[in-house]
């Protein structure tokens, strides 16, 4: 991640995914991609089909009660 406030990047990538990038935003995203190979590599990974949706599925399947139970068990054991 280089030379651009990260705050802008999620918005640009989100708009790219929704195909709602304005021309200036497209150029800004392109500049960021050209800045470093790592940026492009990450971009390809995060925009791969099913990647974001898989993260949402993980959130939906996550059992916060189980995590809290395991955490409390550890704290009681300490």
């Amino acid at each position, binding site marked *: 991640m280089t030379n651009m406030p990260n705050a802008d990047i999620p918005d640009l990538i*989100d708009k790219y995914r929704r195909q709602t990038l304005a021309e200036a935003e497209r150029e800004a995203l392109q500049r960021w991609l050209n800045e470093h190979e*790592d940026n492009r590599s990450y971009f390809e990974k995060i925009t791969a089909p099913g990647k974001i949706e898989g993260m949402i599925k993980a959130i939906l399947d*996550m059992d*916060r009660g*189980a995590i809290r139970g*395991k955490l409390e068990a*550890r704290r009681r054991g300490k």
Partner: protein
Amino acid sequence: MIIHLNELSFEKFGVGDEKVYKIVCDLLEVPLYVFVFDYVKRKDAAEDIVAETLFKLWVNRAKMKGPLHIQRFAYFTARNMAIDLLKQAAHEKTGPAGSMGDLGQLEDLIDETRTTRELEEAEISFRLAMKEMEALVHQLPPKLRQVFHLRFIDGMNVADIARLVGTAHSTVYNQCRAACEKIRKGLEEKGLKDFL
């Protein structure tokens, strides 16, 4: 996902204030889970690692130097535990005689120079997932939308939501379940049925 704690709250965290610790856990739990799940691909293992990470955060609370330190500590800890688990699984697969060369890809993951960038990527990824989630939630009926938002985006527990919206725990639970089903269906309609 930067943890926002004012100076007083951070001081309280350091001396073991339960209320502030719970706020920190609420903020970290979901992004950490998503981060770890991406490594280990197993729900139970990801839940274990998140619980252990939050516990280590409690144990080391007095050593934290600021909100960003809390966040980085949590991600580093979770990441290292995920890598340990993957290494253990790889050893079990290759047997005790398996060489570390078999773990080349894992060794790459341990490269410390990659860590900062990786954490930044994790933050962007989580924000993207939340944006997508918001878009899906927007399509829900108003009541389901409210309950789902409180539960999965704000991170409230069922009892607190029931109290806030003035309904039974079972109603909140059923509404959350119905909302999840609708969102899953939304993902399937986007052509992800096979993936899911």
